C-alpha cells in the first residue's frame, strides 16, 4: 500500500492500465481530490495520509468500480461491433468495410511526410543543440528542442489514435510531476520517453519510406492489373512489354487478370491493417512507454 498521495495515484494509474485514458484521467482526478481534501483537513502526516488512503479504498477496488461504471455506460454509447463474417472469403473481402484498414493505409502514405518532418526536426535540432552547448544560448535552445519533441510526441499520438485506433493519452501528464519549473525540466531529461520519442522520430523516416513504398506498390499493382485488359481492348496494342516483346492477354484470361487486380487491393488492405496494428503497438511502446515509472 502506498504511503503518499503521489504513490497512491501511481498505483491507481497502474491498476487502470489499458483503460480509456479519459477514464484514467477522471479516476485520478477524483482520487486526488479526495486525498488532498483529507490531507488538508487532518494535516499532512503519514498517519492521516494512510487513513485517507484506507478509507478511499485499494487501487484495485477503485479501478474495478470505475471499470464497472464505464462498462454500463459504454453499452449505451458505443456502436455495436460488426459481427465477424462466418466464411473465410467473407472475412477476406470484409476488410473493405474495415475502417482500421483504410485508416492504416492513409497513415502509411502520410508516414513519408511526417517521417521527413520528424527526422529533420531531430537531426537539425540535435545538431544545433550540441553545436551550441558550449555557449549560453545552448541551454534555452535545448529546452526549446525538448519541448518541441514532447509536443510532436503528443501530436503523433493523436494521429496514431485517430488512424490506427490505438488508445493514446490526451495529456501526457505524469503523476507526481510537481515542484518548480526547474524540477519539471529536469524531469524531461530524466524521462526515458523523451529519448525513445526522439528515436521514434528518426526511425519514422525509414519506416515512412517503407510504408509509402508498400502502399504505392500495392495500389499501382491493383490499378495496373485491373486496367490492363481494358486498355488492351481499347487501344488494340499489347500492354505488358519486355524489350521488344509484347505479351498479349488472351480474352479468356482477361477476367482472371482483372480479378487478380481486385485481389491485390484486398491484399494491400490486409497488409495495411497488419502494419497498422504493429505500428500502433510500437508507437505505444516508444511514445508512452509500456510500463509506468513508479513515482519517486
Amino acid at each position, binding site marked *: 500500500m502506498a504511503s503518499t498521495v503521489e504513490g497512491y495515484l501511481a498505483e491507481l494509474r497502474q491498476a487502470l492500465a489499458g483503460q480509456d485514458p479519459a477514464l484514467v484521467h*477522471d*479516476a485520478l*482526478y*477524483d*482520487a*486526488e*481530490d*479526495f*486525498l*488532498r*481534501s*483529507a*490531507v*488538508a*483537513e487532518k494535516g499532512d502526516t503519514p498517519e492521516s495520509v494512510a487513513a485517507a488512503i484506507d*478509507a*478511499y*479504498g*485499494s487501487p484495485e*477496488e*477503485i479501478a474495478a*468500480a*470505475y471499470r*464497472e*461504471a*464505464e462498462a*454500463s*455506460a459504454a453499452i449505451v454509447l458505443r456502436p455495436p461491433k460488426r459481427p465477424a463474417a462466418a466464411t473465410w472469403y467473407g472475412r477476406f473481402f470484409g476488410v473493405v468495410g474495415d475502417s482500421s484498414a483504410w485508416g492504416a493505409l492513409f497513415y502509411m502514405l502520410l508516414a513519408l511526410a511526417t517521417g521527413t518532418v520528424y527526422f529533420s526536426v531531430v537531426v537539425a535540432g540535435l545538431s544545433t543543440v550540441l553545436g551550441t552547448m558550449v555557449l549560453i544560448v545552448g541551454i534555452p535552445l535545448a529546452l526549446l528542442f525538448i519541448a518541441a519533441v514532447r509536443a510532436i510526441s503528443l501530436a503523433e499520438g493523436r494521429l496514431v489514435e485517430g488512424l490506427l485506433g490505438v488508445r493514446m493519452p490526451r495529456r501526457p501528464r505524469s503523476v507526481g510531476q510537481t515542484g518548480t519549473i526547474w524540477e519539471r525540466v529536469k524531469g524531461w531529461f530524466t524521462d526515458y520517453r523523451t529519448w525513445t520519442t526522439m528515436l521514434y522520430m528518426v526511425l519514422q523516416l525509414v519506416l515512412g519510406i517503407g510504408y509509402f513504398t508498400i502502399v504505392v506498390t500495392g495500389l499501382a499493382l491493383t490499378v495496373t492489373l485491373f486496367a490492363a485488359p481494358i486498355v488492351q481492348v481499347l487501344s488494340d496494342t499489347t500492354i505488358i512489354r519486355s524489350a521488344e516483346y509484347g505479351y498479349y492477354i488472351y480474352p479468356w484470361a482477361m477476367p482472371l487478370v482483372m480479378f487478380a487486380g481486385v485481389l491485390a487491393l484486398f491484399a494491400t488492405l490486409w497488409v495495411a491493417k497488419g502494419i497498422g496494428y504493429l505500428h500502433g503497438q510500437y508507437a505505444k511502446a516508444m511514445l508512452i512507454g509500456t510500463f509506468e515509472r513508479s513515482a519517486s
Partner: protein
Amino acid sequence: MDAADEAMLRKLQKELNAGTVALVLLAILDRSAEPLYGYQIAKRIEGAWQEGVPVKQGTLYPVLRSMEDNGLLWSRVEPSVAGPPRKYYQITDRGRVVLGSWRAAWARTRDFVDATLEGNVG
C-alpha cells in the same frame, strides 16, 4: 465465524452497498441545502455509520459521475486551495423525481425483507 463465513459476509455487504449507494447519495444531496463535493459527501456517510464504514469512499465517485451522466445530478467546478479544482454536486429536478420512485422501491424491498426475516412469509 471462520474466514469463509467472513468472506461471504463481506460479499453480501458489498452487494447490498452496490444496490443502495446511488439511493444514499441521491438522498444526501436532496437533504443538503448547498452543493457538496465528493469529500464532503464521503464525510457525511462516514459520520452516519456507527462503526467502520463498510463502503470504500473511492467507490462513491464513479457513481456520482454516472448519475450526473444520467441527468440526476448537476455539477460545477470550483478552484480549491487543497488540490485539484473541486466538483460540487447538486440534485436536479429529474433527480428528485427519480429519488421519489427509488424511495418507494426501497420501502417495499425493506418491508419485504423484514417480513421474511421475521417469519411472516412462506
